[in-house]
């Protein structure tokens, strides 16, 4: 079916992806060895969706998911960081063609590519874009926002490295290979 615009599946993926992002962001974090700090699972999930459904889905899940998650829990949206979520989702999604997760193969080479990309994209997003926007929009002190960006960036890079990689491996396994199922009596 060749229709203009996004496929229905991509639309649904954006919607469901954003919903899951909200739930993960609000409720599900992994305890870390440092007391009172938790690692968000949501960015690992965002990376998975970006790789599976491509850059547009990745960017929009970042946008809708982050904005909804902010509004439902704080009542206001921190736009500068939402922009970074869009950026991260979009650019991780751009590599998806290289990885081709649908083939069911996600080996060492793909893992390295994926993590390299996510590191570069997130570093640019959290260490540079987020603080710059914070200063421009909110006129916050620059050293504060750079330190904040640094912490958020490191945490999210770790989240994607652990959760994102695990999820992609799990997902690749579900891509059944063609003609592989038989009944064993």
């Amino acid at each position, binding site marked *: 079916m060749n229709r203009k615009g996004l496929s229905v599946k991509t639309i649904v993926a954006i919607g469901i992806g954003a919903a899951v992002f909200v739930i993960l962001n609000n409720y599900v974090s992994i305890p870390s060895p440092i007391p009172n700090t938790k690692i968000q699972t949501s960015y690992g999930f965002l990376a998975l969706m970006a790789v599976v459904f491509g850059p547009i889905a990745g960017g929009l899940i970042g946008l809708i998911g982050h904005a909804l998650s902010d509004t439902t829990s704080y009542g206001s949206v921190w736009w500068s960081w939402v922009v970074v979520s869009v950026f991260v989702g979009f650019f991780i999604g751009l590599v998806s063609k290289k990885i081709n997760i649908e083939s069911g193969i996600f080996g060492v080479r793909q893992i390295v590519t994926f993590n390299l990309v996510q590191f570069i994209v997130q570093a640019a997003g959290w260490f540079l874009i987020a603080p710059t926007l914070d200063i421009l*929009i909110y006129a916050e002190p620059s050293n504060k926002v750079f330190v904040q960006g640094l912490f958020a960036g490191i945490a999210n890079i770790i989240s994607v490295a652990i959760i994102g990689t695990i999820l992609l491996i799990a997902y690749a396994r579900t891509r059944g290979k063609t003609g592989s199922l038989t009944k064993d009596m």
Partner: protein
Amino acid sequence: MAVEMLSYIKRTSPVHELSGATKLILFIMWSSAAMLTYDTRILLFLFIMSIAIFMVSKIHFREISFVLYFILFFLLLNNMAIYIFSPQEGVRIYGTSHVLVDIAGRYNVTMEQLFYQFNITIKYFVVIPAALLFIVTTHPSEFAASLNRIGVPYKIAYAVSIALRYIPDIQRDFRNIAQSQQARGIDLSKKEKLFKRVKNTASIIIPLILSSLDRIEVITNAMELRGFGKNRKRTWYSGKSFKRADYFMLVLGACILGATLLITFHDGNRFYNPFV
């Protein structure tokens, strides 16, 4: 885990009556005004207005108070962080230094710093009632229709609608998965060791995510079977048409935004400076 989330509260009030698109545009104008200006007089004016609109909406304070505590706590942290990182930010901005208390080194308390942080805080107090109101007075299904009306492609608007529709489902799924995993022996309490807890969390989010991916397929099928995406446009069952009040509010909102920008930027500085 079932922390409350903000959601639509059904009521009859002039605010509820407005079309979702109107409220969305107003909200965007309102928050742009609040975001751009640091003019204290305008901020105070906007703040008082938003309290007034809040009262008109018949939403009770206690219905949203749980979020407010959250926000207050966040604001407190943010203020502390600003002070710790940059105790002289106010002095830098306003160009004078009226010291009230000396603590150590850079760390003193100046009127400028207090005023600067007061401004940052009140900006939130301007946006928050508006945002809360927008969320609790706009029916989620009308929201998608509104997005479409203000120019967002309908497919993307519908994606937002799907997200809103499925947040409770996924929350329930998450609970059910957690419950059925616990019923089969997984311990989610803090008693377990760190590594075990990481593993246990993974054993819940992996099924949650994989089942959501399956769900994408099922929903896609159902939507395609009922003809989603076949036309360039679609109509909305719960869309609201514009009434006179909508136009009036939009014009009013535009005036406020215009005035704000004019007053804020006419002298080339976003900050209102009472110290000179």
